[in-house]
């Protein structure tokens, strides 16, 4: 492989990403001429109000959500793989998304009173904030639990099993809750659970965007800690890492990312585990200073392309994004790992 500097690769990816973003906005069930799409995007005017609505209110926020979810989930997965020193760690495997779901379920099903529910629904945007906060807290809670338990174990596989178990417990708690809640309330929860990239409006985008960007900045600033953690906690401590603080920052950042995206888009699996592997293989580095932005770009690219695939022309239905990410991404990961022949490639 010819040596291309990471900066050039990042720039190349950025260009690809821009193209993918524009492509995502240009294709859809409704045929809108490319010229009109650009006209709407850049001058915010159009001869057709419907087109304007579709581009501005449907496609643009959806593409932005794909960008944010792609960045957030990949980086969160990267952080977890490094923190837990486990190539299989990702938000959904370790029960972090289940934790976010628990947070959301708590808000939606708590008290069991329809009044609370109506209050949240009518809150509109501030309701979204509430659900976001709950999801982030839920994600953080589970992550702290997994980490506390894993602190007693040196074995990665055991730790993974513990994470999965905690995830199952969380899911079961939610199920019990659902079982005893009125169908009215469950319905709202189910609606959320099956959320998609398309459910985020421009107003909510602002909340999702600011939380995600905050999480990403924290993640990038923690690159040095993550690098040190690559060598294991003992080495990291011997090099001057304050493990408590590092964990706190990484968990905060990861919970913000996984929590907020889960809150708005529902649990999207696969991206968190796959993108870090793809990125490491493409960039052939373990340096988080490069991996964090690179994961953002590749995660975004993956989600944008999946979204394009989900709405290929002539397709009026909306395939859940989960299906497409797994269908397209999993073979890529398998191929890359086979080439690498070693699963411990975190």
């Amino acid at each position: 492989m010819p040596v291309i500097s990471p900066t050039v690769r990042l720039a190349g990816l950025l260009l690809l990403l821009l193209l993918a973003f524009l492509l995502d906005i240009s294709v859809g069930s409704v045929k809108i001429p490319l010229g009109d799409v650009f006209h709407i995007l850049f001058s915010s005017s159009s001869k057709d109000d419907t087109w304007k609505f579709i581009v501005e209110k449907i496609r643009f926020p959806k593409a932005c959500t794909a960008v944010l979810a792609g960045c957030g989930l990949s980086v969160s997965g990267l952080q977890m793989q490094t923190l837990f020193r486990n190539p299989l760690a990702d938000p959904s495997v370790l029960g972090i998304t289940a934790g976010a779901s628990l947070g959301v379920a708590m808000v939606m099903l708590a008290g069991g009173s329809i009044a609370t529910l109506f209050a949240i629904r009518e809150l509109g945007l501030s309701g979204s904030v509430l659900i976001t906060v709950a999801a982030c807290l839920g994600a953080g809670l589970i992550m702290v639990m997994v980490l506390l338990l894993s602190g007693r174990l040196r074995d990665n596989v055991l730790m993974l099993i513990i994470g999965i178990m905690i995830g199952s417990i969380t899911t079961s708690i939610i199920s019990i809750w659902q079982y005893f809640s009125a169908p009215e309330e469950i319905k709202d929860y189910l609606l959320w659970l099956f959320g998609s990239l398309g459910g985020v409006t421009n107003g909510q985008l602002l909340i999702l965007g600011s939380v995600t960007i905050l999480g990403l900045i924290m993640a990038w600033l923690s690159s040095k800690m993550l690098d040190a953690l690559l060598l294991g906690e003992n080495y990291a401590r011997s090099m001057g890492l304050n493990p408590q603080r590092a964990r706190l920052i990484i968990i905060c950042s990861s919970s913000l990312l996984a929590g907020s995206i889960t809150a708005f888009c529902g649990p999207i699996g696969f991206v968190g585990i796959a993108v870090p592997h793809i990125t490491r293989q493409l960039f052939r580095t373990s340096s988080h200073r490069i991996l964090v932005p690179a994961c953002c770009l590749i995660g975004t690219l993956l989600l944008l392309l999946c979204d394009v695939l989900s709405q290929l022309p002539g397709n009026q239905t909306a395939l859940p994004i989960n299906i497409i990410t797994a269908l397209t991404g999993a073979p890529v990961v398998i191929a890359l790992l086979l080439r690498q022949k070693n699963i411990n490639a975190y």
Partner: protein
Amino acid sequence: MPDPLPLLQTRDLQTGYRSGGRKTITTKGPLALEVSAGQLICLLGPNGAGKSTLLKTLAGLLAPLEGSVKSDGIDVRQLTPIQRARTVSLVLTERVGTHQLTVYSLVALGRYPYSGWMGGLDPTDRTAIEWAIEAAGIQALRDRKLSTLSDGESQKVMLARALAQDTPVLMLDEPTAHLDLPSRIRLMRLLHQLAHQTNKGILLSTHELELALQVADEVWLLQNAETLHRGAPEDLVLNGAFEEAFAHEDIHFDKQTGTFSIQHDNRKPVLFAGEGLAAWWTRRALQRNGFFVVPSPAAGAEPAPLIRLMEKGGQPHWLLESGANDIREFDSIAALLAILDQLPL
């Protein structure tokens, strides 16, 4: 030449683990230890004697149960993580499984306590990294991925990382554990040179008693939870500390050779007469096979077979006298042993 001011000094130290309000003492102490500049100290002791715990406590990663570890008069537990990382660097037994990391990046991680918020490196850092790579002799490996390294190479790379950390004290936990013999010897020699040339205090734990005896300026011999002998290796041999520390029914420490041998339960006495290289190896072979070698061939003192080492045409030959007129001749130790085993003793 030991420095008048030690780099690390312990007072009334007792090491062990605390978990859930319970204390597990590994070394009771109280220990008064010093690591001085330019010294290579080998920490020896049987498995489970608490070598790793003592190392981690000295490095400030583990809180002592009692007493303190001080560097420059300051308790290492009071230092900030960064200050501590600038005082002691470590090479641990755990393997680093980060396959996409190159050797250079790994060594560069040693600059963690000095580099900026994002891990950016300035010229000082780069100089330190280059020096560490050269000192550890891994120039040829600098662009390799960790996953492609042999055990010996990867141990040297981890050493380079610790060197890049540029600390007065360097500690290594069983650095020779997975290495083949030449690599062990080379690594030990390298550490010995480093201690003397860079004036670092180097402390390493090891099982390699014989190697340690050859390179250590000082040996800390952890006998058990209660006792730690310290001193020059030769002194510890002479005062019987080694024998005591590794005392075991079937292990025998030979002060003459500085080696251990397996001791069999029902040792059979043989008399042996001979000198030189061949005599040394003969004695060894006899011991290995469960014979108790009576050094002086005082004829008739004991009813035991007598082995005489002779020379015949520049080659060693052995004569075995196992009765009044039963004398046999052998041209190899193996042949001798084969017959010895059949003698009714």
